[in-house]
């Protein structure tokens, strides 16, 4: 079954809260990981690996730097899960 954007966003919120201690309520599609949520490059790797396990997708290293916002991550994961 294909993943919905809402389901992935909910999962990403939980992961970012767990990895970086950011309250899930403040995590929205338009938020920039670095500038808005203060998720640094190494925490981003932890988020990506957790997302890979949770959603059963592969997010290559070269793609990680392209995931600027929460929405970028959600859209990429949904596109890969189809």
């Amino acid at each position, binding site marked *: 079954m294909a993943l919905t954007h809402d389901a992935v966003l909910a999962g990403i919120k939980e992961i970012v809260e767990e990895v970086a201690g950011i309250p899930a309520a403040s995590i929205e599609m338009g938020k920039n990981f670095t500038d808005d949520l203060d998720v*640094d*490059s*190494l925490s*981003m*790797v*932890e988020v*990506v*690996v957790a997302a890979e396990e949770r959603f059963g997708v592969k997010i290559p*290293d070269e793609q*990680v*730097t392209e995931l600027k916002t929460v929405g970028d991550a959600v859209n990429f994961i949904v596109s890969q899960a189809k």
Partner: protein
Amino acid sequence: MALTFTTPNSHSRILSVGAYRPSRIIPNSEIVDRIDSSDEWIRERSGIESRRFAGPDESVISMALAASKQAISRSGLSVSDIDAVIVATITYPFQTPSAATELIMKLGNPKAAAFDISAACAGFCYGVGMAADLIRSGTATNVLVVGVEKLSDFTDPDDRGTAFIFADGAGAVVIGKSESAGIGPMIWGSDAESRDAILMTPSWIDLKAPGSVGWPDISMQGQTVFRWAVYQMAPVALKALDVAGLTPETLAAFIPHQANMRIIDAMAKSMKLPESVAIARDVRVSGNTSAASVPIAMDALLAERPDLHGKSALIIGFGAGLVYAAQAIELPQAPK
């Protein structure tokens, strides 16, 4: 006619450890201007508060010599008892002869077998594994294994990815025969598909060409290395424990390569190490000294926690190649 010989030693162990930290203490404040950074930024991303850089009178060999003399002294052996010397380094500034042969000359033991190994941050653990097998097979009696680096010679002070991480220092162990198991099987290997993740560029040949391209420095893809170290190396570490008959619950100390505090913490979490395990966090004041980091961190941990002498530890090195090696060990007994 068949060969007849015996393998005299069932086991080997680390008899002693020694370390040398260069005299120049470099706080983050001395690094930040050239990489447009701050003390807080460096601490958050690496856990490093300060590191040591060698001064003009401190070389790869002088640092290796100091660490070796301390380790030999603590072993209770004489220099002449050492019959093989392995130096792990990537920063000895001569292609040949080896650092190990210069070291044995300076030690006053010029007849010992001597060679270098190039396995970057895994080099010390590669050396420990080789030394253990040399002793068990009867090829060597007492082996000196040295990890030494002067990374400041090969680091671009303007590189935001490495300038605050790499540092200088030396550590050494003496390994000899043992009645009981003291060094577990080495779990080792490579992930050479990611060879580009840590690179020295340009090559020596490029440097020789007209219109020189500049001094070789070591660069690193931080995210790639972090991902590999945390998620690929934790299973390697657990396997090294398992083949030695240990578990995270029965382990006394974890002494990983001091790459970055974030890697150390994430590995410990991934391995589910209980709070009873003492974790070496020498990177805070020593930075990343590549091949030297494990023995320097071992020396620091035993100084801080003398009760750990003779207890079990897991050591693991991982770095440029990408290559790795890990083994469970019994930490040396307290020097007499």
